[in-house]
């Protein structure tokens, strides 16, 4: 375990240095990226599936705002924007000379149409509320977009940077799921069902310096051992997502490859049904929080590559507060709290684990052992993904489960008492609304810190660790993202040093 940490640390330290040694990027070459899941269609405005964003976000499609490799919100199709003092009016100056891959021009009219489409009745967008927050859309000239919000929304820019908010062409949008047309640095070539998605450099990209690569192929290989074989045999150049930690260790010993270990926005939590006995009792949940040794969980489940968390917020998302000390590992305290809650001899419960996520299964076993030591006997049930969505997520028929919540900035799910863990707290809802209404960065930081704190204190779920972002690639591949602060595998600035 120590060695894993040392290797991980070395990678963290050395990798940025090798980039910094920085030759100027070279143009040309093609890249084959291995990802685990094949997306269900290629339209990010018609599904919140992470597998879609991992292929198309910032590669084929762009929104007004982009998330960069540091988690910052940078100009995308909007060259810059201003927010009025009351926080309600956003004025975007759009980039000039942007065309879609089919030749259509991007301007304020197109942006307006896209925003209206997301808000329309019967929209297929998974997040219509992003767009319904807008009261009025004005286009004073061809490249100015003035949005007036119904209310202050400190997450508005965050939402405009999501995959759900990318811009589609007004004429060529109909068949986006199969034939995507965007403004991005790469244009779609072909989707070989069951095998790969291919894209080629967009010669007319608005930034003439980019991209560096001529061609990018996303190949879908689910089986971890097949992934490694493909990398070692040279069939793919990089394992971008998802790399199993056990494999990362093996590959990092091979001089032909390098492993980047960063952080992602996926918080792995032991989801807890706050409405069923005995988990409706806060003392029980707090006892569990004390019974979990997060450091050990992180080491056993992801070989120490992840980061322990104490609340539902990833360390690479702005405004993060470290709350891991709130409930330090203390089995004695846990037992005391259980006794106080009326369970001096513990109790039995069932944890349902989704079979498709190996980390969830491993974490389930580790947690079952830890809780067993304070008298809570867990029965493990492994369930298929469709079953999980139906029984656990939709019907809330569970006591405990285990899942990674991939989206950044998703703490708002705690404000919804009908969400599957059924947390119902007016205090949190007030705090969240206040955070949303904050107009300055200091206020926002304070507001979101408060939100993190409330759910940590209430021990709503078992907060375990933020998933690592592990990628393994040929050593000549440069400038790949180390952290994944948003759900994307952005190849815009990636280049070959050979």
């Amino acid at each position, binding site marked *: 375990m120590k060695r894993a940490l040392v290797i991980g640390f070395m990678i963290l330290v050395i990798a940025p240095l090798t980039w910094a040694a920085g030759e100027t990027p070279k143009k040309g070459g093609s890249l084959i990226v291995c990802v685990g899941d094949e997306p269900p269609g290629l339209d990010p405005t018609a599904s919140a599936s992470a597998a879609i964003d991992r292929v198309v976000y910032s590669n084929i499609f762009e929104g007004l705002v982009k998330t960069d490799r540091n988690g910052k919100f940078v100009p995308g199709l909007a060259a810059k924007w201003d927010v009025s003092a009351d926080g309600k009016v956003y004025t975007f100056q759009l980039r000039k000379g942007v065309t879609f891959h089919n030749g259509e021009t991007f301007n304020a009219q197109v942006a307006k149409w896209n925003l209206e489409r997301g808000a329309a009745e019967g929209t297929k967008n*998974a997040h219509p509320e992003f767009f319904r927050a807008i009261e009025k859309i004005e286009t004073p000239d061809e490249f100015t977009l003035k949005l007036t919000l119904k209310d202050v929304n400190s997450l508005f820019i965050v939402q405009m940077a999501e995959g759900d908010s990318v811009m589609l062409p007004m004429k060529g949008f109909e068949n986006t799921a199969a034939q995507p047309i965007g403004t991005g640095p790469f244009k779609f070539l072909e989707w070989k069902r069951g*095998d790969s998605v291919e894209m080629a450099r967009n010669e007319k990209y608005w930034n003439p310096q980019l991209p560096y690569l001529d061609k990018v192929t996303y190949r879908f290989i689910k*089986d971890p051992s097949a992934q490694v074989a493909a990398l070692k*045999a040279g069939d793919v150049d990089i394992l971008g997502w998802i790399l199993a930690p056990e494999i990362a260790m093996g590959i990092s010993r091979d001089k032909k490859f390098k492993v980047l270990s960063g952080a992602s926005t996926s918080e792995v939590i032991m989801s807890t049904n706050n409405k069923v006995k005995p988990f409706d009792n806060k003392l029980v949940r707090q006892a569990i929080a004390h019974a979990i040794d997060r450091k050990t969980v992180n080491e056993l489940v992801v070989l120490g590559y992840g980061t322990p968390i104490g609340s539902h917020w990833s360390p690479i998302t702005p405004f993060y507060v470290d709350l891991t000390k709130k409930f330090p590992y203390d089995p004695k305290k846990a037992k005391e709290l259980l006794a106080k809650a009326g369970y001096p001899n513990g109790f039995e419960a069932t944890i349902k684990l989704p079979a498709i996520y190996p980390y969830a299964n491993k974490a389930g076993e580790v947690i079952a052992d830890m809780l067993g030591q304070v008298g809570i006997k867990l029965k493990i049930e492994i369930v298929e993904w469709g079953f999980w*969505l*139906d029984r656990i997520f939709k019907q809330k028929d569970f006591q405990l489960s285990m899942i990674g919540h991939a989206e950044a900035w*998703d703490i708002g799910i705690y404000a919804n008492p009908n969400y599957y863990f059924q947390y119902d707290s007016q205090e949190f809802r007030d705090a969240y609304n206040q955070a949303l209404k904050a107009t300055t960065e200091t206020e926002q930081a304070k507001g979101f810190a408060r939100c993190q704190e409330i759910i940590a204190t209430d021990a709503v779920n078992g907060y375990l660790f933020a998933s690592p972002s592990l990628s393994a690639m040929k050593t000549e591949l440069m400038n790949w993202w180390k952290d994944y602060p948003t759900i994307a595998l952005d190849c815009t600035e990636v280049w070959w040093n050979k």
Partner: protein
Amino acid sequence: MLRYLAKKLITLVLLLFLVSITVFSVLFVLPGDPAQIILGINATPESLASLRADLGLDKSFLGQYGDWIGKLLVGQSHQSIHYKMPVFELVLSRLAVTGPLALLAMLFAVAISIPLGIYAARHQNQRGDVTVMAFTQLGLATPEFWLGILLILLFSVQLNWFAAGGFPGWGTDPWGSFKALLLPAFALGVIRASILTRLTRSSMLEVLREDYVRTARAKGLRESTVVYGHALRNALIPVLTIMGLQLGQLLAGAIIIENVYFLPGLGRLVFTSIGMRDLPVVRDIVLLMATAVVSVNFIVDLAYAYVDPRIKLK
């Protein structure tokens, strides 16, 4: 003959109807909402409802069944929820991988098993026979995915002779596509060869004890003429039956090896489609496979009737 044919045809249609009802019902009660799987866990209820309506999932059991069968009857293809293309095209493109893979695997199996089986039978209980039998035992005990991984490690990672998996497509790279099928076909073929070798051997041993073989030998024919000219043909009949069954299995169920070599074949399509609740794809493929099996049996029945006139009278 006509009455017989009509009777058989009616049974065939009834059988397919029952299969369609069963397939549909089983998938209907399967927990898991395709709309939820597509939209993800943070989707709003409104988007979910809208997509469900779009996919026709808001209709009643009979309504959905009618939609499905109705389209099939008029020869219209359904749309895959996951892949956003007609199921018919999808299945055809997958058959272009799985079909050749199954044939190639059978070719390997036959090329290995028939000569080995004959050799073992002719040297019964001698050292050669014992060695061959030991290897077939090993082959029977080896899981095909493991053999597949071993082959990748040797031929792809170490020697770099083959790609570790994937399928470039017949259109873009015919030779590369053929090469991509060789390792998985070999892995599938070797395992099946173990069964066929044992079968060929025992069947051959039985035939070699027949009177006509003794007669042939008594006539003074050379041993090779006796074995290959007279005994082999009869010995192969049970082997062919099993081979037919194996070929059917290979077409439907090369799921594991297709995952190891990430080949876009029919087996993997069914597998991922069930996981993604891509119900139109699953339903159509299961019905297609059922139709294939039923039709083959139908043809066999007809063939029996043709060969043996007594069957018609029943």
